[in-house]
């Protein structure tokens, strides 16, 4: 009867796995080949039953978790712990994290589990391997917060913070957002926690989200000095890894504080050395321009050229505007030498990088204002015979006609490449 054939079909798809054969279009099957293909991944060795049963166990655990069958999950978990003793060292090393994730979830929901069981479990897992220590500690603290056990969370964190080795900061980088929210929660609740955070931040490492939140809190409570101290430490302490964000935070803070220009310049100078392409560099240039010192002016030119060395900034109209203007200013100030010095290292590659005829056409099509600024710079540096300048100067545009005329005039006046000389 057809209905039973159907039943057979249905049931067949359920218990499908049996033996998977290697298919080929002609309907030939090579089960022995499948076996060999399977061993390629393991380097020729057949998978041991240990590996097969533990992965089946994992499957059962996950299924039980999905179905909220905590009892079952705990039962399988009991057997799953043996992967901590896996002879395969890769699997053995990956084991604690998996076990933590699954175990903590089971203990979170299981009716028979209590905060104490969770604590015991967390403590045990922390002892397996240093790398997991902080991650588990923080997640443990979160769990405690969830249960409204603020004191315990606090105690937990302060206790563990003293043990954190600086190896752990890569992990903080990853879970930035999570820890940020976590830290936010903590700050909203208690001031005491800040003491712990302070201790934490003093340990060398990358603590960006913590620092940000902490400083916000300090500013909120009016402790400007404290905030400044924290940020300065964070940026300048040699023991800490080189971190551009540290300097950015400090700079922004000082800006808010309306610190003197000198101070701001000194902070940004370091950032310039670390990340010369940063968008703050334009701000840095402005500060340098406004300064009275001559070497600041020179640096200002350097910074501008530095910014435009990077592919990410080639279409930055502000940068080009500044450069165009500043070149004129510099040349009018009789500092041809500066310009020549900057141009020396760049004259071999800037022309094709910025001023090729392709760019001329493309820039003009995309952003005429940008093209004009670039044309001016090109004209000054390469002379009025260069392709870019010639292309732009030939363009006839209602709006920019006047500007182009001005550019031609400037180039004539200021061009570094002077046929006459």
């Amino acid at each position, binding site marked *: 009867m057809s209905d039973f054939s159907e039943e*057979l079909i249905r049931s*067949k798809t359920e218990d499908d796995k049996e033996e998977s054969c290697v298919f080929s279009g002609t309907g030939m099957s090579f089960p022995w080949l499948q076996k060999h293909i399977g061993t390629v991944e393991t380097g020729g060795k057949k998978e041991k039953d240990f590996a097969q049963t533990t992965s089946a166990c994992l499957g059962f655990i996950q299924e039980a978790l999905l179905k909220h069958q905590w009892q079952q999950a705990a039962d*399988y978990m009991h*057997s799953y712990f043996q992967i*901590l003793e896996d002879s395969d060292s890769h699997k053995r090393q990956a084991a604690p994290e998996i076990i933590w994730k699954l175990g903590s979830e089971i203990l979170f929901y299981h009716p028979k589990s209590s905060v104490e069981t969770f604590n015991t*479990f967390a403590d*045990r897992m922390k002892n397996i391997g240093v790398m997991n220590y902080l991650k588990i500690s923080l997640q443990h603290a979160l769990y405690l917060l969830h249960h409204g056990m603020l004191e315990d969370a606090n105690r937990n964190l302060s206790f563990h913070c003293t043990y954190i080795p600086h190896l752990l900061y890569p992990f903080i980088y990853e879970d930035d957002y999570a820890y940020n929210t976590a830290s936010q929660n903590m700050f909203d609740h208690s001031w005491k926690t800040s003491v712990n955070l302070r201790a934490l931040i003093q340990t060398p490492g990358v603590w960006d989200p913590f620092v940000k939140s902490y400083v916000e809190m300090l500013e909120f409570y009016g402790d400007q000095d404290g905030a400044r101290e924290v940020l300065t430490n964070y940026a300048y302490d040699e023991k800490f890894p080189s971190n551009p964000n540290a300097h950015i935070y400090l700079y922004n803070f000082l800006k808010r504080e309306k610190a003197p220009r000198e101070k701001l310049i000194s902070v940004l100078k370091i950032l310039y050395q670390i990340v010369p392409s940063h968008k703050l560099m334009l701000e840095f240039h402005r500060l340098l321009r406004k300064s009275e010192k001559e070497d600041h002016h020179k640096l200002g030119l350097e910074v501008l050229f530095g910014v435009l060395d990077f592919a990410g900034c080639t279409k930055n109209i502000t940068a080009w505007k500044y450069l165009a203007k500043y070149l004129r200013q510099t040349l009018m100030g009789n500092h041809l030498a500066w310009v020549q010095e900057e141009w020396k290292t760049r004259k071999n590659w800037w022309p094709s990088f910025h001023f090729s005829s392709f760019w001329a056409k493309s820039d003009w099509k995309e952003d005429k204002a940008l093209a004009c600024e670039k044309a001016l710079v090109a004209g000054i540096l390469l002379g009025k015979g260069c392709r870019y300048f010639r292309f732009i100067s030939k363009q006839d545009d209602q709006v920019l006609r006047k500007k182009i005329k001005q550019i031609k005039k400037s180039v004539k006046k200021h061009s570094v490449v002077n046929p006459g000389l």
Partner: protein
Amino acid sequence: MDLEEAKEFRERCTQCAAVSWGLTDEGKYYCTSCHNVTERSKEVINTGAIPNTKIQAINRGLKRKRKLEKGWDWYVCEGFQQILYQQAEALKTLGVGPELKNEVLHNFWKRYLQKSKQAYCKNPIYTSGRKATVLEDNPSHSDWDSEPDLLSDFSCPSFVESGTDSQPDGHTPKPFPISKVSQSETASICSGSLDGVEYSLRKEKEIVKMTMPRTLAFCYLSLLWQRETITLSDLLRFVEEGHIPYINAFQHFPEEMKLYGRDKGIFAIESWPTYEDIYKKVIEIAKFLDLPRFPDITEDSYLHPNILCMKYLMEVNLPDEMNDLTCQVVKMTGIGEVDFLTFDPIAKMAKTVKYDVQAVAVIVVVLKLLFLLDDNLEWTLSNIAEKYNEKNKEDKPWFDFRKWYQVMKKSIDEKKQKWEEARAKYLWKSEKPLYHSSIDRAVVYKRREMVVSLQKQFSALVDSAPTVEKKSPSSFQFNWTEGDSARTCFHGHGLQGILKKKGQSLTTKNSLYWLSTQKFCRSYCKHVTTYEESNFSLSYQFIINLFSFLLRIKTSSLHEEVSLIEKILFKRKYGKTKKKSRSRKGRKY
């Protein structure tokens, strides 16, 4: 010598009055300051396993304490001997006669040691580090007393329980010389056994190296020799269910046989044995040991297909009447002949019959004969049976394939599910952890402690109520009883619905048949045929899956066996060059 070992000896030295003792090689205490040797010897603590006082004396004399862990000196093959002993004991508990352990297995093992030149021969193999003292087969040699015979060595109990003398019968005792062992104890690659490292590196072509799976091959050979009622699939199932020591069998070594380092790779196995693999090893070992023809398998042996078919028919709940048909098929194919069934390793094309697989294959052929299994006829015949049964409720019911299918499907699915769950929960690691060397010992122990404590914590969360008791071992995985309304028993059902009279005899209503394999492979690959599921009917797939699960073999193996039976049965068909997917054949008997 270690001062630690002599700590308990607290007397003052008679010559120099110091209390600082060590142990000589002979086990006597000596003063470390003036080197005065006393007559006091260190007592051996645990003599439980030693039956023989002579051996006790030997122990005190020769056995040296190891640096890493105190214990006896032992060789890898002694370890295997231990394991075989345990397995034989387990088989005895299962009902096998004691001769298997005392005589058959014992002799096979001795023969193996001889053939592999590890004992009972003139020039035993040794590693370079040792001085081998080769002894002539002169039993009155002066050293004989101090060199224990391998098999009677106290570190592994003798197979012969009742025997008072530890010499095996019928063999001239050729002692197993033990020379002074100078194992470099600072080596990072080490092992608890004396030759563990060397053993795992040994690679001689002609010699079959003993491994854990091969212990089962030895067991099976002994069972086969004794014609016991345990098939290979039964044996392996008992291993999986834990009735026969295999995984972590080394845990039951005597306390003093310390296991670590390279021993781990030899004894700690993390896979269950597979039928196909052990089968190959059985033949390999039988050939290696030069065994003679085995005792005959006759019609009244359990392993004869007539009897095994009956057993399996009962197990899968098929009617007893089918047994007639299976006997017929057996007769027609000649697979019930003594010469066909009996194992003869020395024969030109040595093979042993896969008794269980063959019996099951016969049943599959019979089912095909009766029902065709083309996803059509079997259901049609079921309809007829159903109609008849409804009208004639008092008579013996006709066998209804559909009903049988429903009952069996449910049962097998349940069993399979439980089996998978049990496997997923299986705990592989031994209670006493195995470490590689003194370096990782502490780590390994700590890990174990961690695992145990975590397990304890989680087992508290699990419902403590119904703990699954360990199943008592049984040949039968399914049991069917008459009168059980929940699970119909089909044993007593009749085949009238699918047979019809033809003159004096009965023949099947179905007159068609299709072959499982149209052409057999003759090339280099070791398979004669392959099994591509989608080429076959769903009914056939169900049947193959059912029986393969029962025997815990691969579906392709069973399919192959079915094909081979058909090859004999339909000889003429295969003789013809043109292929026919269906053949018309009337069965007559």
